[in-house]
C-alpha cells in the first residue's frame, strides 16, 4: 500500500509519533500511531473520502484539520458525527464511513 507518511524530514528529522497500533476502517485493518488524529492515520493510508452528505450524497474529506468545519465526521466505535481530525487513535478502534447524519438506519454506505 502506498504510504503518505513523511518518514524523513530535513528539519524535523525521523518520524517519532506514538506507539504503532492497528485500527479497522470499514472492515479493513490499517496501521496507525496511538494518539495521532484518526484523520491523519486515514490519510496516511491513502483514504480520502470520510463521509457522504445527507441530501446530495456528495463525498467529503478533511478540510480544516482543526475541528472547525465538520467535513471529516465519521462513525467511531458506533458513535456518529465524530470529528476525526481532532479525535486521537486508540488501538482497535472501529471506524466507518458516515452517510448523512449517521443515524443507525443509514449506517452502511
Amino acid at each position, binding site marked *: 500500500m502506498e504510504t*503518505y*507518511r*513523511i*518518514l524523513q*524530514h*530535513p*528539519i*524535523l528529522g525521523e*518520524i517519532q*509519533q506514538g506507539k504503532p497500533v492497528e485500527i479497522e476502517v470499514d472492515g479493513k485493518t490499517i496501521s496507525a500511531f496511538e494518539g*495521532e*488524529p484518526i484523520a*491523519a492515520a486515514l*490519510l*496516511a493510508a491513502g483514504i*480520502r*473520502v*470520510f463521509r457522504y452528505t445527507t441530501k446530495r450524497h*456528495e*463525498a*467529503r*474529506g*478533511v*478540510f*480544516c*484539520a*482543526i*475541528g*472547525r468545519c465538520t467535513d471529516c465526521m465519521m462513525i467511531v466505535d458506533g458513535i456518529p458525527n465524530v470529528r476525526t*481530525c*481532532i479525535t*486521537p487513535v486508540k488501538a482497535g478502534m472501529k471506524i466507518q464511513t458516515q452517510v448523512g447524519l449517521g443515524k443507525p438506519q443509514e449506517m452502511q454506505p
Partner: protein
Amino acid sequence: MRETEFAIVGAGPAGLSAAIEAARAGVQVTLIDENEKPGGQLFKQIHKFFGSKEHYAGVRGIDIGYQLLDEVEKCGAEVMLNSVVWGIFENLDLGIIQNGKRNLHLQPKKVLLATGAVENALAFPGWTLAGVMGAGAIQTLVNVHRVLPGKRILMVGSGNVGLIVSYQLLQAGAEVVALVEAAPRIGGYAVHASKVARRGVPILVSTTVKEALGKETVEQAVLVSLDENWKPIPGSERTLDVDVICLACGLSPLAELAWMAGVDFTYIPQFGGWMPLHNENMETTRSGLYIAGDLAGIEEASTAIEEGRLAGVAAAESLGYLSPAAAEEQKTVIRKRLNQLREGPFGEARKEIKEQLAFGGGKWRY
C-alpha cells in the same frame, strides 16, 4: 461557580505570553484552550522567524513554542486543556465545556480573548471535493502529524501562508505543481517567494482556479487567467493533474466570543476584516475585557506574542499587582518591540492603523 482573577481564552502565542506576564506579576491566571496541547498555531511553524534582532529572529516557531510552554509551567498559571469556552456573559463569566462533557462556569475579574483566526475559504465548482483543503490544515498534517495530504499540490494564494506552506510541502517531499495568485503581484515577502521559485515552482499571478474536477476526490484543477479587472479571460483555461488544492486565501479574526460580549467592532481589510476595537492596552470597549493576537487583527506569531504580553501587563496593573509606573515601564519596552516588528511596507501600514485605533480618537469607529 469557580472564580479566578484573570481568565485567558486561547493558549496560542498571544494567550501564553499574556499568562506568563500576568502570573509573573502575581496574578491568579487560568489559561483555557480547546486543544489537547497548548501552543495554538505555533507548533506548525517550522520555518525561522525574522524581524527584530532581540525578537526570536532566526528561531523556528516550534522552538519558540517550547520556550513559552516552559515559561508557562514555571510561572504558576493554571492551564485548562480540552476546554471549549462556549459563552461569555454579563459579568464576564465564562461557560466552558470540558472534555466534551462537563460544563463549568467560571467567574473571572478580567478576561483576555486570544482565540486566533479562522481560514478564509474560496468557493468554486468542485471546491467540496475531498482534497480541497485549507493551508492551515495542510500545515498541521504535514508538520505536526507527518502525513502528506496528497502528492501533487496546487497552491492558491501567494501571501506568506501560501508561500511558506508551499515550501514546507516541498521539504516534506510533495510536488507543488503551481502556485496561483489572483492579484497581479505576489502578496507575501520576497524572501519566501524566491525560496519557492528557486525550487522550480511556477508562480502564476493574475491566475485563479476556475474549477476542481474529480469524482469524489480532486483529480484535476482548471486554471484561468484574469484580466486587469479580475475577470476571467475566455480561452485561457488550462488543466493540471493534481490531487490536492490548497487554499491560502487569508485569515479572519475568530471573533464569535467578542461579538457575544457585545464590544464595538471595526472593519479593517489589512487586518483581515471585522475585529474588535481596542486601545493601547489591548482593552476593548468593554472594561476588563482584553484581546490580543490574531483576534486583534491578523499579523504574525511574533506580534501576537508582544500583544499578549501587553495585555498581560495591563491586566496585572488593573488588578493592582503592578504600580502604574512599573506597568508603564514594561509597556514601553513591549510597544517598542512591537513597532520594530511592524516595519517594511506591510508593517508600516499596520503600525499606523494600530496607533490610530489606540490613540486616534475613533477614526476607525463604525
